[in-house]
């Protein structure tokens, strides 16, 4: 089969269903159809690109050969030198690669959703465990670690919101990319319950303060299959809310929406649930759903009341493959 000549999603479907390749006429038809689609809205085009990427990554994962659990897949030579402060790299390391997809609202407050690919990659000492992580958690490092109580810096990257990407935003102007930096504290009173709080200051697209609070019940059904779920709450200052939900006089004229002065306060409340299943020592799959209901001025903004929705739901799905690398 000449898989390379097929569009990725078709290639994936063909491999799964074991269909024969379509003939030249069919290929031409696919090209024509794709050309027509390319002329459609940019957001839709981006969705297709993302879907192609996701399919390619899933295909790559399927084609990765299964390695024996015991033996490292790769053995690398010892490094030519070592830094005195750092521990030696010799030994066995577990590398995890994978891909996930997230189906989430086009922008915060949007009515429609879009699928985005998410890469998964981590390296850790063989045998060491990955700590529980919620889908909404920011990237963080525990600099203070009492075992059940951990704290440290946290950061989140909030992508820019381009007005020309979605028709609902036409005339509102762009909101630049934001980097939110701050800290986190999490506490495990018992192994199966986690509470976490984050406080972050925005730099870039917004200059406000965001506070996230969450709790998760983490229940192992069997050792390889874990279910977790719990409530969520977010508070945002006026400076964090206004760029996304406020509408000034100029924007009101350009969009036809009424002017709105968005203030800070309780931003959203919701709940999330996650399942993860370790198929074998190499393969792991996970899925999650996060629901949040916008509150306060975020929910009252004409952008949400007239063109969007206060109900924001995100679905996620991912698969990862772990293999061992031994460094001599």
């Amino acid at each position, binding site marked *: 089969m000449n898989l390379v000549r097929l569009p990725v999603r078709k290639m994936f479907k063909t491999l799964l269903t074991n269909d024969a390749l379509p003939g030249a006429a069919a290929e031409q038809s696919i090209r024509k159809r794709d050309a027509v689609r390319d002329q459609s809205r940019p957001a839709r085009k981006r969705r297709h690109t993302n879907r192609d990427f996701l399919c390619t990554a899933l295909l790559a994962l399927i084609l990765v050969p299964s390695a024996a659990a015991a033996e490292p897949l790769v053995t690398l030579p010892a490094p030519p030198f070592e830094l005195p402060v750092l521990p030696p790299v010799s030994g066995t390391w577990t590398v995890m690669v994978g891909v996930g997809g997230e189906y989430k609202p086009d922008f915060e407050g949007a009515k429609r959703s879009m699928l985005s690919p998410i890469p998964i990659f981590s390296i850790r000492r063989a045998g060491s*465990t990955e*700590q529980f992580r919620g889908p909404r958690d920011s990237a963080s490092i*525990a600099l203070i670690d009492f075992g059940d109580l951990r704290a440290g810096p946290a950061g989140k990257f909030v992508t820019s919101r381009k007005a020309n990407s979605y028709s609902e935003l036409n005339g509102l102007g762009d909101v630049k990319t934001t980097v939110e930096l701050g800290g986190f504290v999490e506490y495990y009173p018992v192994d199966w319950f986690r509470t976490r709080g984050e406080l972050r200051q925005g730099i870039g697209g917004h200059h406000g303060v965001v506070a996230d609070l969450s709790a998760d019940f983490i229940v192992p059904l069997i050792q390889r299959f874990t279910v977790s779920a719990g409530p969520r709450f977010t508070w945002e200052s006026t400076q964090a809310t206004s760029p996304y939900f406020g509408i000034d006089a100029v924007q009101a004229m350009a969009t036809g929406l009424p002017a709105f002065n968005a203030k800070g306060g309780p931003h959203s409340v919701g709940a999330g649930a996650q399942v993860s299943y370790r198929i074998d020592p190499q393969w792991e799959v996970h899925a999650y759903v996060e629901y949040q209901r916008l509150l306060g001025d975020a929910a009252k903004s004409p952008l949400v009341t007239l063109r969007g929705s206060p109900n924001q739901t995100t679905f996620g799905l991912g698969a990862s493959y772990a293999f061992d690398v031994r460094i001599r």
Partner: protein
Amino acid sequence: MRPGSRCVSFATIVLVAVSVSACAMLETRETKLQGVKTVGIISAVGDEITFAKGGLTGLDNRSQRFPIGSWGLDELIVQQITAALSGRFQVQPVTYQREAFAAAEKDSVITPVNVIRGDPFKKLVQTEVSPQGLDAYIVITKAKSTFGGGGRKLEGIGFLNYGTVLASYSQIHALYEIRVFDGKTFDVIEKMTAPPLDDVGAVRIAGPSRMLDESFAPGAGDPAQNEKLHAAITDLVARSLPPTLSDMHLADVR
């Protein structure tokens, strides 16, 4: 030349320069170990066993500790390492305060402090070990590992019962790390935590561990009297030493 290409070229030159200078400045472990002829071995791992509960537990999931000094695990470790290293080094018997090494300064809760502060065993090797003046001292002490999704840690020799909704799992572990101290400067030449064995247990632990069936579970009596448990721990330690010494380039005994 485009600006992007210039940046890549500059980064490559910097990387090569740093690598070359680092190679010139820093000795590898192999180089440091080449000068070592006489070694002493200190082991402080086998004084107690910890019984821990994890996963779906009750509200009281504190660990319990029991003395197992009578099992002679430290003597076994010294004996095994001596046998493994005898071809390459001249291993000399040393006397030391095992309790002092077992109760050495614990990790700081402020994690960066653990990276920048000196090794907690350096002073002990200088003051608590006799004779002094050997080329190197090999020190085996307890290591830690997190388990499950939370931040709780296991340490040293132990027995873990991990509960889930539908099943519970029993697992033993022998978590230890090996340091090689320079006998003159008392700097750490080499340090490594024993890696997991091939037959890892259901619960991931960053060190040697294996699953056990219920018959190994300690009853109400003294765990030190449980011969099956004793034999299983001894086997775990004996099987985990060769790959660790091999990874440390001390002996090729895999």
